[in-house]
């Protein structure tokens, strides 16, 4: 009985195994059938990536061209922004609105105004710009200051030497004239006292005087783009500001300076611009005449201190026998200056530099 039972169990196991095996085979063949019925397909992918090309051009300027405070000669006469600096020798006074204007004075200068350009753009570009300026000058003539005289009698009038030295003007007059005789009764006599003389020795007008001289060079002081800066008397006897502006604009305004992609713009030869109001002029023939003009300029500005809209007003005048010119009447006749126009009609210097770096198509 046990043998029979064992035989039956063995047979059952075999048949179970066979059934299981066939089940597995069935499942496998089913999978193959499903795969066989699949379609043929083809897939292709084309892809490309690009990044934005770099620009990264940065332009800066070290310091301002003019300042409100300047150090003394021992410290270079240069601009300082530290109002507590003990070496300050020139300092602008506050206006009525508490602002302070940039100032210029004999002995001041600035050689720290630097243009900096950085960046290596991946595109072609061009540097364009424009320099707009305004300078002032003193004509090469005589300059007088009117002083009230104490003349009260004809004798005193006639005692004045030099017919051309005495001019008469009444405050109510809109013109001036040399007297042809003695007239009293209300007339006030003013004497034109010479304070500066830029005429030549032959009495003809001398070269104009430009107190502020400008230079434009490479960073290392060499000539920039072939521009030679005037030196000596040539520097203050012509408008060097206009000279450098003309050269600057010829390079940057007319056509600009092109650069190619991949250029390191820090190597671009931007100009270095400096200026100076010489404390003395070492021309042995000047005999201090420019110093007197500088003093006159300073006194004119001082007489008008506090007037932020001050301009040197000049008007043409006729009737001055032997001397024609413009007469400056700002605060009244007494102390007024007589002479050729200081021209342009202000003691202001304007420096407006614009540089643009643009991609070229």
């Amino acid at each position, binding site marked *: 009985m046990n043998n029979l039972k064992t035989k039956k169990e063995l047979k059952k196991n075999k048949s179970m195994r066979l059934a299981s095996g066939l089940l597995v085979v069935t499942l496998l063949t089913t999978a193959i059938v499903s795969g066989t019925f699949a379609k043929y397909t083809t897939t*292709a992918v084309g892809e490309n990536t690009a990044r934005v090309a770099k620009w990264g051009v940065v332009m800066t300027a070290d310091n301002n061209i003019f300042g409100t405070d300047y150090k003394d000669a021992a410290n270079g006469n240069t601009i300082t922004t530290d109002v507590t600096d003990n070496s300050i020798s020139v300092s602008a006074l506050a206006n009525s609105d508490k602002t302070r204007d940039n100032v210029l004075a004999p002995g001041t200068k600035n050689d720290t105004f630097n243009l900096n350009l950085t960046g290596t753009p991946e595109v072609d570009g061009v540097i364009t710009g424009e320099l707009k300026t305004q300078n002032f000058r003193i004509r090469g003539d005589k300059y007088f200051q009117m002083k009230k005289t104490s003349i009260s009698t004809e004798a005193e009038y006639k005692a004045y030497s030099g017919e051309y030295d005495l001019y008469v003007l009444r405050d109510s007059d809109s013109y001036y004239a040399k007297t042809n005789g003695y007239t009293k009764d209300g007339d006030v006599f003013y004497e034109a006292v010479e304070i500066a003389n830029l005429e030549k020795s032959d009495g003809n007008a001398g070269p104009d005087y430009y107190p502020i001289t400008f230079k434009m060079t490479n960073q290392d002081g060499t000539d920039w783009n072939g521009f030679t800066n005037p030196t000596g008397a040539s520097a203050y006897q012509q408008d060097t500001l206009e000279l450098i502006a003309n050269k600057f604009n010829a390079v940057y305004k007319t056509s600009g300076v092109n650069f190619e992609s991949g250029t390191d713009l820090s190597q671009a030869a931007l100009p270095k611009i400096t200026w100076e109001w010489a404390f003395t002029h070492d021309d042995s023939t000047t005999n201090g005449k420019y110093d007197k003009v500088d003093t006159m300029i300073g006194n004119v500005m001082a007489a008008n201190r506090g007037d932020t809209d001050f301009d040197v007003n000049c008007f043409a005048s006729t009737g001055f026998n032997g001397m024609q010119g413009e007469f400056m009447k700002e605060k009244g006749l007494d102390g007024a200056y007589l002479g050729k126009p200081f021209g342009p009609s202000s003691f202001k210097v304007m420096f407006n530099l614009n540089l643009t770096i643009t991609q070229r198509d």
Partner: protein
Amino acid sequence: MQNRKGKIWLLVCVLFICVAITVSVIGNHLIYISQIEKEAISLFPSVAVESDETNDEGGSSSIAITNNANGVGTQQNTEGIETFDNKQTWSTETDVEIFKLTYTNDDGKVSVVSSNGEEVIAPGTENEYTFHIKNNGSTTVKYQMTCEVLTSPSDVDFPVNIAMKSYTGDYLLGSDQGMERLAKGSFIRDEASLYAKNYAYYTLFWEWPFEQGDDDFDTYLGNRAVDEDLTVTVVIRTYAWSDENSQIADGGLRNPNTGDTTNVMYYLMLGGIAVVLVACIIWKKKKDGEHDEE
């Protein structure tokens, strides 16, 4: 016990029959497909085969291939479906030249140059890229072409325009009058049939206008690009499959059967009959066994 044994054997027989059916079905099919057929569409480009075939029956959805056809380039006439441009045949991940390393201006002078070997875009740059889809087989196929535009970072609205024109002369995006903004490139899609020995082609256009009234934004992007990669990626996918509905294709050749038309029901019925017979035999045996016991 006898009953259970019978059931097991019944199961064995049924399974055996199932296996027999599937083996016969597969066997027939495998014999058939193991033979090399001219009309079969290969999954991979095979050895070049010279072909002087032209197809004058090119349908309106594709262009017949002729020797030295314009735009075909130097492609080999390989079997199957090919997507290619004038420099290479696409695979499943192909770097194509939609963007460039350098660009020239209208005067023919190079004005934009990548500094590190990566394709770039910049104001004033533009390009067009043409690719072909060619059916080298002898039967009709269907294909689908899609485009996807990806940008990074996501906060940048790239001032780039895009358009695509098909071989029919129609624009899938944009028009002769102008292109569309870059993001719309992901809406480009086309689906058509390609008869045997025919090809289709598409041209992708893009531009970053030099003057579009927002120089400040262009400058902002150019400055931001100094420290960060601002990227545009264009992905074009082509997907082709056999046209099962085309019974008689060009040249009178039948479309290869990627499926099977075997009458499976015949075999199932046969199997069913076999199951019934087996069941009867077992029942008979069982009956005989019971009589013997009596």
